[in-house]
Structures are given as C-alpha cells and as structure tokens.
C-alpha cells in the first residue's frame, strides 16, 4: 500500500538510472520527467491524451506520460527518448528516421520513436498497415506520416532480412 496523501516519495528508474523524489500527487508523469528530472526530450502537445508526444515505455508498456500521475510511477521502470542512443551511437530507429527524413520540426519525434520502439518489440516485422495502426496515437503535423512510416518500415525490413538470413544460414548447415 502506498499511503494516502497529497505528496509522496517515489523511486523511479528512468533509462536505468534510479531517482528518489518527493512529488505532489497531482503531478503528471510527463511533468515529473520534464520539470523534476529535467528529461525534456519527452514533449507535451495536447491536454487530452490525444497527441502521443509524451509517449514513454512504462514497465514495458507504451503509455502516454500525460495520462499517469507521478506517484503511479513509484517502483516503475521507464524508458524515454534519452535512453535510446547508447554510448553516443544512435539506435537503428533513430538512424532510420534521419536517413529517411522521418522528422521535420522534431517535436513529435521523441514520442514517435518510443512508439516505434515498442511496436518493433511487439512485432519486429510489421506491415505498413500494422505500422500505421501502431503509430495512430502519435500525431505529427509536419510529415503526413509518409516518411515516418518509411523510416519504421526500413528497420522492419532490416529485421526481416536478418530473420531470413538466419534461417538461410541454418538451412545451409
């Protein structure tokens, strides 16, 4: 049981780093990430949970961080855009978004990348339709989604090629 109150001490792991903070119960998770932890990569684009700019991965689940309260994150493991690149190396989705011009102003991009990350974990080789269904909760006003879909498809295609390659390798043995 977490005690009843307007403020709570919570422990949250974000991108592998443990944070202990005192939060107001009314603070939205997205404000906790941005204002309390200064992880400003996660953005806010609406006030109705409609735009997906604040999407993060919360205990393995893709969520909109404006739709959770900070105390709900007590004990949670959270992944944000800041955790995608490892040792300065962009991850395949980040590289693909850049290579295929999958971003213009870049404001929806962090949320879009987290959604794409989750989508490819659930289904490494989605079809275009599955990609569109998967990113439906993330609004982009710049790209018409065309190059975002291309960017994700390219990574899926690479997964497909790897899977085929692996199978072929086994067949040969």
């Amino acid at each position, binding site marked *: *049981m977490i005690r009843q*109150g*307007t403020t709570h001490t919570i422990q949250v792991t974000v991108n592998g780093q443990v944070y202990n903070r005192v939060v107001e*119960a009314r603070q*939205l998770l997205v404000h906790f990430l941005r204002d309390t932890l200064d992880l400003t990569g996660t953005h806010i684009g609406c006030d109705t949970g409609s735009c997906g700019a604040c999407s993060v991965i919360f205990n393995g689940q893709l969520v909109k961080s404006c*739709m*959770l309260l900070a105390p*709900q994150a007590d004990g949670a493991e959270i992944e944000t855009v800041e955790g995608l690149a490892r040792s300065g190396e962009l991850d395949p989705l980040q590289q693909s978004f850049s290579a295929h011009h999958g971003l213009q102003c870049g404001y929806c991009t962090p949320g879009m990348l987290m959604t794409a990350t989750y989508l490819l974990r659930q289904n490494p080789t989605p079809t275009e339709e599955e990609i569109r269904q998967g990113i*439906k*909760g993330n609004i982009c006003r710049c790209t018409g989604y065309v190059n975002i879909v291309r960017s994700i498809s390219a990574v899926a295609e690479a997964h497909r090629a790897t899977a085929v390659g692996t199978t072929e390798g086994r067949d040969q043995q």
Partner: protein
Amino acid sequence: MLLKSVEYVRPDTVPEALDLLRSNVGAAPLAGGQSLTNVLKHRVASVDLLVDISALAELRSITRTAEGVIEIGSCVTYDEIDHSREVRAGHDIVARVAAHIEDQQIRNRGTIGGNCCLSDPTNNLPPLLVALGATMNVRSAGGSRQVAAEDFFKGYFLTALEPGELLTSVTIPPLLSGVGAGYVSVSVAADSKAIVRAAARVEVKGVIGEARVVLARVASVPVRHRGMEDALRGAPPTAESVRAAAATIGNELEPIADSHGSSQYRREMARVVAQRAVLEAIAEGGGK
C-alpha cells in the same frame, strides 16, 4: 495539464480499496486513468482522493468456464483483452472491438471497468456488453451485487454504482452455436470517436431467433431497439428482412446533435449501422 491538488493512495487489496472508497467522500477509483486523468486536467470534476486500483491482482484476471462464460476483471486493459486467448476463444468480437479502441497507448492502460464506469456515450464497450447480455459484478464494503449491463448505464457519466461501490468484473455469457455478434460504427475517423454505433447479438436457427440490437450515441446511454428486435424475430436471416427490420428505427430516437453529426443524420445512420451489425452477427453465427 495541471490538476487541482488531490490525494493519492494505492491499496494492496480490494477490501482496502472498498474501505477507502466508503470512508472518503470525494474518493474516486483510478483504474487505467485514460479518461479520469483528462477529467482532472480540465478540472471539470472534483475529486479529493484517487484510489489507485489499477494493479490489484484480483481485478486483473480473465477466466473462462467450461460452459464458455467469460469473466473479465475490471482492471484488465483493452490490450490484454485483445491478446487474451480466453477472450478470443469464444468472444472474438470483444477482442476485436478492444483492438480498435483509439490507439496503442490507450489500449495499454485503459480498462474495461473504466470504459464502463465513465459511462461516456462515445465509449466502445458499453453497447457491446449490453448486446451480449453481460452482467456487471459490483462490490462494496457491505457486500456484492450483480447488475445487468442493460441496467448499468444510467446517463451521461452516470451508472448504477452507488457511492462506495466498485465494479470488480464483467461476466459475459457464451455465444453458443448459431449465435453471432456484430459491431459497426460510423466514426469521425479511423478508430476514433463514434458518431453512431450499433452492437448486435443474433441467434439464427433457420430463422432469426432472439436478437438484441443496441444503439449507441443516439441517447445518453446505449439503448436496445425493441422494435427492430421484434421485427427480426422469426424473420429469415436475409439482407432484405434485416433492412426491413432496421426501418423500424425512426423518430422515437432523438439523438443529440454535435459538430460531428446532426440528430437527423444520427437517426438515419442508426438504421445503417444496426442493419450492418445484425448482418455481421448473422454471418458470424452462421459460420459456427
């Protein structure tokens, strides 16, 4: 985005939650929060204490009996319903509807209980549960009771739940041989807010037997259309007879008008979606 000051508590058990709900005026259960959080952001409802029930194991299970009755805990998410073998086994339509609620993020958090208890007329599951003849299992610190889905939804943002009561699960009877279900919406856009929607459960044994036709967004709550149900009973399961039955939907409906559709359009579309939902149900039932 900025909420009024509020207290938060996360109980470990359902009885603890029920105690908290009973003993705090202004307490509200917080399940997936995919609607409640918006309500709080816009400060349109006053809540003093949020009782977070989202992680209570007791509310998070899906069970299926040998007879094919399915019970879904109130804090089971749409995504879990979509991916549940138990649900897919005999209630594919429930999974299919859950799979098209808004978007992945909302499906990962939003729960069947929240979808029902908010009683927002645009919500996806209430008309389906009414059509399927579901039962809402309700508990309070004082005991438990069951409410037919048909009687559960009372008005805009209003249900049969009394203060201190909690919806713990939803029981859905089996869709037996010859019984199929259908669900059709006219929506603003793909997987978005419905302008009008129909859910149907239809029994076909040569001719149409029992039929339940539920319309949503034509009133504050999902409504069964008895006229169409009566017209279907005994009729051959053909497009013509279903069209004729749908024609009974008329001026008795006085749907609300909003920027997405006038009252007249909603009434006309109610006929279209009812007809299509019944035909889908017939096709599905006939396939068994």
